[in-house]
């Protein structure tokens, strides 16, 4: 197809949400987890290619992680169990707030809370130190464990998921991004409830759960037993989740994106922005490659903005978005 718009003139910026909008200069999101809390990220990748950096999960009090092995390779990806290990809100702020202030992209802190009270207290703690931190949004991690569900994920039931979202909305005026996995119950209803609650975007970047025995088959491959899956093996499921919530609210699509072509698939399935994770360990240049590829793809279709690629596959344009 002949380009009607030069790639260089294709707009990369976008605004997610309306009642609590979040402006991103680029539709590239660094998923919570793989690159830490912030201070180290700029040494690993060029954050100027990124629209939003999401920190590893932060809780009110320190959380310890499981024994090793915590990460093992599986066909098509990896199985991991870090259990939201973090040193707690105060230490994270002390160590990383300066990096957030200096970041050339928006910053969201991923919040981990096992009940609504601790979530409210966690947000209050961040906002009490607002003079030291620059936070553009909070990510509410519905893939983290809930006390009320005996450690099962918040997203396991619609009611529990909505309860945490409401608690977050009552606690802050900052944009909220709700993180779910393809395992989430009642995905469409959850997305609509999130939209009604004033959530800015839904991040379909959470890992579905997985299990693998050890080679001896005498225990789990992970010390924790059940873990979470990342990598290409989850990509079709993540894309199906994006499709199922498309139209309810802006979507950050992730899960197994390892190449620019994978990212174009996520845009085509309905994502307004794409989330990159463990693929960055091997390819720190992936954000720029995705950005350039998306600009060329938009230009080739005569689109003025990368965000116009969102949902192409759902609007009758059945051809795969490609360079």
């Amino acid at each position, binding site marked *: 197809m002949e380009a009607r718009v030069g790639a260089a003139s294709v707009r990369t910026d976008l605004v997610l949400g309306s009642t609590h909008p979040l402006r991103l200069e680029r539709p590239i999101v660094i998923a919570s987890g793989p690159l*830490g809390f912030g201070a180290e990220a700029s040494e690993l990748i060029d954050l100027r290619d990124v629209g939003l950096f999401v920190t590893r999960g932060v809780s009110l009090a320190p959380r310890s992680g499981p024994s090793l092995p915590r*990460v093992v390779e599986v066909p098509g*990806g990896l199985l991991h169990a870090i259990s939201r*290990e973090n040193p707690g809100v105060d230490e994270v702020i002390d*160590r990383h707030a300066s990096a957030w202030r200096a970041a050339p992209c928006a910053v969201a802190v991923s919040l981990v809370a096992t009940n609504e009270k601790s979530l409210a207290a966690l947000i209050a703690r961040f906002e009490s130190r607002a003079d030291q931190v620059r936070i553009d949004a909070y990510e509410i991690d519905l893939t983290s464990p809930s006390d009320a569900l005996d450690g099962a994920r918040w997203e396991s039931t619609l009611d529990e998921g909505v309860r945490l979202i409401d608690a977050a909305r009552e606690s802050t005026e900052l944009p909220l991004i709700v993180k779910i996995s393809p395992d989430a119950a009642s995905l469409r209803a959850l997305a609509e409830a999130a939209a009604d609650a004033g959530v800015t975007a839904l991040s379909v970047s959470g890992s579905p759960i997985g299990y693998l025995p050890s080679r001896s088959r005498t225990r789990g491959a992970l010390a924790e037993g059940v873990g979470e899956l990342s990598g290409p093996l989850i990509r079709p499921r993540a894309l199906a989740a994006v499709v199922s919530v498309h139209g309810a609210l802006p979507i950050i699509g992730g899960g*197994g994106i390892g190449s620019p072509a994978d990212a174009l698939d996520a845009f085509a399935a309905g994502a307004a922005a794409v989330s990159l994770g463990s*693929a960055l360990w091997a390819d720190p240049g992936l954000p720029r490659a995705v950005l350039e590829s998306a600009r060329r793809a938009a230009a080739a279709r005569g689109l003025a903005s990368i965000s116009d690629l969102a949902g192409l596959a759902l609007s009758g344009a059945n051809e795969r978005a490609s360079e």
Partner: protein
Amino acid sequence: MGAAPVRAQLLAVGELAPGRSALLLRLPELIASLRAGHALHLLHAEAGGYRLRRVAPVTQIDLIAGSVQVALQPRADGGRDSLAELVPGAQLSVVGPIGQPIEIDPDALQILIVTDVEGFPWVRLLATSLAAAGRSVTMLLESSTAAEIPPASLLPESVEIHVATEDGSLGHHGSAADLVATYAAWADQVVAAGSSELLSATTLLLRAAGVSDRTSARVARPRGEAGAKRLQLIVAHEIGCGSGVCGGCTYQSAAGSVRLCKEGPAVTPSGSTGRTRGAR
């Protein structure tokens, strides 16, 4: 953190033991910085799409040839490692060194190494370099069966090897840990690498023998942590970011958390590295 990847040329693919692959790499940029205990993060440079860097312990260094041998650890899922299927001439993307060298007390002249087939790649270079430095090295090597034991030719002749097999097909019938008590008094320092069961058993036996609390005639050590440092455990990990940020190789212990890719792979039984830790 975040060392830039360098290219390495694959010179040969071989075996350390039956079914345990090793890669010989031309790696001039990093070779001078590598020590026993270090690993490299490897990636097939020409592969596309989603990839993971695998942790490969350094098993041999040839400074004259500019080559480095690394071992491919078996995948936890039992799958084949695509790196083992590459042919000489392939280009690898390498990040390293991963971790810290294994520290041996300058005054420790008699070193006991307790290991199994999986731990062997982490201590082969240590045994070789200690022997080359004139220290006495005894290795207790465990395997499920004789056929899986790495060949003795991989170690200098001066290294004394005692084999234990689970099926009794060679050497002691049982675990290498069963032999630890025999050598506990002899050793000035002990390094253990292998399965968590072997590490636990070795730690318990040495504690029972009083080794971690014993004051050497040559090296006066106070009781407690300084004495405990005489036993070092090598904790392996498979994949991860290699930058200390993902939490995938964090080893939880009584002494706090240790990022194996940064402060490891050697820890004391209490979990500390015995090194000054930097801020994270």
